[in-house]
């Protein structure tokens, strides 16, 4: 186990391993998402209250889930990179941020599109989930802006890692305060906790979508990490060999 982890942390080994894993992840993810999309759009029975508009949850919920998972991955990797000075972990953190931001954007957009027929408005400040997602998007922007402002990769890694950890401490607090804030004026809620439970033919496509999107996220993440590894290892021999095979001849 430890030897495997040790090997995994070695950039050239990771670079090759990731390349061989991406197609499998992508295919499995696409199969699940394909099933989820078809079943969710055409075979799941319409919700008795929201009719066919509820089908948006099959893309909204996975996006919202990944927006949060992205931050968790980013902060965890940043912490590992900061404590053990592991370049690979920093590469993961740097790659998770733009992906997480994209999924946050998706969660916001699909949430607004869902809200329009349900609430009659594109944006409902009273909904704590949408507001939290918006702040999460700003957190991602801050992280990426800090990275972009620092030219030196090592410095950018470490500085942005501090920011990611500070953000991770604050995310639960932000979520709690937004919940408190919106509870003061009872806003319309889309899904009540413990409300109408969704089951069977409605639930399976949702699980497939969540799992499938996670696999696609992993594939996209690994692809980005490979690029980041190349940047961090640009002076290493194996990278030179990789970009110019005939040089060693």
């Amino acid at each position, binding site marked *: 186990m430890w030897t495997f982890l040790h090997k995994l942390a070695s950039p050239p080994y990771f670079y090759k391993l990731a390349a061989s894993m991406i197609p499998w992840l992508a295919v499995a993810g696409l199969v699940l998402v394909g099933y989820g999309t078809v079943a969710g759009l*055409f075979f799941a029975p319409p919700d008795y209250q929201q*009719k*066919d*508009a509820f089908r948006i949850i099959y*893309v909204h919920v996975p996006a919202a889930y990944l927006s949060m998972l992205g931050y968790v991955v980013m902060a965890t990797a940043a912490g590992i990179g900061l404590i053990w000075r592991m370049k690979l972990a920093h590469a993961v953190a740097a790659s998770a941020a733009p992906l997480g931001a994209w999924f946050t954007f998706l969660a916001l957009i699909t949430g607004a*599109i869902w809200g329009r027929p349900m609430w009659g408005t594109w944006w409902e400040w009273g909904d704590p989930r949408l507001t939290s997602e918006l702040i999460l998007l700003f957190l991602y922007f801050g992280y990426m802006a800090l990275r972009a402002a620092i030219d030196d990769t090592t410095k950018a890694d470490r500085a942005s890692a501090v920011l990611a950890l500070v953000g991770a401490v604050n995310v639960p607090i932000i979520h709690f305060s937004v919940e408190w804030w919106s509870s003061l004026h009872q806003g319309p809620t889309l899904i009540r906790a413990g409300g109408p439970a969704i089951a069977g033919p409605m639930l399976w496509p949702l699980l497939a979508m969540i799992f499938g999107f996670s696999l696609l996220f992993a594939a996209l993440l690994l*692809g980005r990490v490979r690029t980041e590894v190349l940047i961090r290892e640009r002076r290493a021999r194996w990278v030179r060999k990789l970009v110019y095979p005939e040089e060693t001849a």
Partner: protein
Amino acid sequence: MEVLSMGGYGAYVWTAYALTFGVLILCVAQGRRRHRRVMSELRARVLVDRAAAEKSR
């Protein structure tokens, strides 16, 4: 055609799905473009280094 209209919510449902898959495709394209750009930058760097080495020889 009944399927497409989604009980009157067609515009919303289809836009949400189109945006989601659009962003997914965009993510893939963005990642690939970045990888290619980094690769070509690294290649250029090797060439520059080699030229410098030959000059000094």
